[in-house]
């Protein structure tokens, strides 16, 4: 169990590192998506019980996986997909205006 939490931490840090160090917009979006996926994995792991069945009660099961984190994971996935779509659209617009995806070359974003 504890190794899965370690995987979550590594994935999250990897995504954050990608987001902070890369200057390519597409790579930044990929980094944000990796962070998002690690959070979904965390939600799934939180509800896991050893030898538990899926939360579909068609018989009398004794051990059932916690259904609440799964419902919340669905929310997280939907919001993540929406944000990705919006980010991609803005990337397309930036690429059309500046002809580059490198944020260090886009002058007005330098601040």
């Amino acid at each position: 169990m504890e190794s899965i939490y370690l995987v979550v931490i590594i994935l999250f840090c990897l995504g954050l590192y990608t987001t902070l160090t890369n200057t390519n917009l597409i790579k930044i979006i990929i980094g944000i998506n990796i962070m998002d996926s690690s959070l979904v994995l965390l939600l799934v792991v939180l509800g896991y019980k050893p030898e538990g069945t899926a939360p579909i009660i068609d018989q009398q099961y004794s051990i059932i996986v916690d259904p609440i984190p799964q419902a919340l994971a669905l929310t997280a996935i939907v919001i993540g997909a929406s944000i990705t779509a919006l980010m991609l659209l803005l990337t397309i617009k930036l690429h059309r205006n500046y002809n580059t995806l490198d944020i260090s070359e886009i002058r007005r974003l330098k601040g």
Partner: protein
Amino acid sequence: MRKIYILILILGLGILLFINFSDLFEDSNLANNKYQLSQHYIENGVKDTGAINLVTAILFDYRGFDTLGEATVIFIVVSAISLLATKERVFVSDTNFSQIVYQNISFIIPFLYILAFYLIAYGHLSPGGGFAGGVVIATTFILLKITFGIRYVKEEEALGKKSLLESLGAISFVLTGLLGILLGYNFLANGQTSLYLGIAGQLVSAGIIPILNLATGIKVGSGLAIIFHRLVREE
């Protein structure tokens, strides 16, 4: 140099997260999964909602209002993308695939529709539901567009129909929720009203949950199709 600073910062964050999670292991509630709310849902979920799929029961009954907000997020994203994307007409995929691709895609699309409507209709009985089924519906549009190119789909007409469908899904979700108020209970009330819940495990059961599933499926499917449509048009 900047990368090294960031690396040190992120290593610190990772160590903090690890300490936080190790504290979680000490929590006996988490180790045994003995949360009262989860236990309540597992024990009373089928009786309260009539749906044997507890995830759907939570999504569309206990947290139905939450799901309405979730659907609103997709609606807002579709609106924002439609607003921001210009109306220029650009043909993205002018590549010609081999005959095998065309034949296979034409063959597979009816089955994809069957899968999507199975996922939506049996959302309260088996894994799936409105969101998953909606994504499969959107996949059919995307496949058609990628293989046959934009020219084969009459664009403006299709977009109008899709946005109509999306609004229809949202409105039917809200109207189904208002039914609970009309009957004298809360918004999106299901189990506590005098509605017929049916026998748990049958196709027609669980009160308003299948209707909400259908509304969400239509909404998500058409919404994602519109998003894809707008994104490929913008080049």
